[in-house]
């Protein structure tokens, strides 16, 4: 249950390079099944457009999971995450084509706390939109 990143080697301002996470319709269908969130705005474009959306959109929690994956891959251990919160600021629109959508996540160490804890400020974008805001993860480093 230990991060592979050493607290003493990380300074405030340390940047974690962006990672792109592709999203296709099938991913949303799988996420609906795994999470139990079957809201049709996440898989049925007829329904999505009827309620005023441009197209099918990803579950907010799917996007949060991608940024979470970014954090756990950096930390080296999912058990190192002690706090993780986001605000959903824009939609990830997922068209029914080969390209789908891309969620691009990057991070910066915003703060160092006692107890080997660091606070990461995360940025998640899809197209021109910033899809998460106030996204922060607190991680216990080695």
């Amino acid at each position: 249950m230990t991060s592979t990143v050493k607290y003493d080697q990380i300074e405030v301002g340390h940047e974690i390079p962006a990672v792109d996470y592709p999203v296709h319709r099938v991913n949303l269908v799988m996420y609906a099944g795994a999470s139990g969130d079957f809201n049709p705005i996440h898989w049925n474009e007829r329904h999505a457009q009827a309620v005023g959306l441009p197209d099918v959109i990803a579950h907010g929690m799917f996007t949060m999971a991608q940024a979470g994956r970014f954090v756990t891959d950096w930390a080296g251990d999912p058990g190192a995450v002690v706090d993780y919160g986001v605000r959903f600021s824009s939609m990830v629109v997922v068209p029914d084509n080969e390209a789908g959508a891309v969620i691009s996540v990057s991070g910066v160490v915003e703060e160092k706390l006692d107890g080997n804890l660091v606070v990461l400020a995360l940025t998640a974008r899809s197209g021109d939109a910033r899809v998460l805001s106030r996204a922060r993860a607190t991680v216990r480093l080695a």
Partner: protein
Amino acid sequence: MALNRDYIGRTYPAPAPYEVSRVKIREFAAAIGDQNPIYRDPEAARAAGHPDVVAPPTFPIVFSLSGAGEAFADPELGLDYSMVVHGMQRFEYARPVYAGDELLCTSTISEIRSVGRNEMLTIKSDVTTVAGEPVCTTYNTLVERGGAA
């Protein structure tokens, strides 16, 4: 329609413990596209110092609203679920969720307020093992579009 403020502070225990299985964790990890062996292989999880397969950080969303569903469906609350979008989400972890956990979840409507034309409702859920060990606390803020108009 504005949400009924009388519901602030009301508490909803989940109807039964949630049993965390290796199979469900594997399914969830596959759905988020995460190939980490710690979510699949008990030996890999133990080698990293965990008692069993670990759940990804956002996994508690699978069960943490099961009690509050009763509130959402209550016509006296006045929530039009077809207008709901997810506004904010936060998890505070006392420890990771593991395969084999039997978890109890108690949800409380901690806040209802208007922001512009929208109504915002926050559910705080305390998750413990059946033995009472704290596991995590989740905060789920729903936005009812146009609810305050």
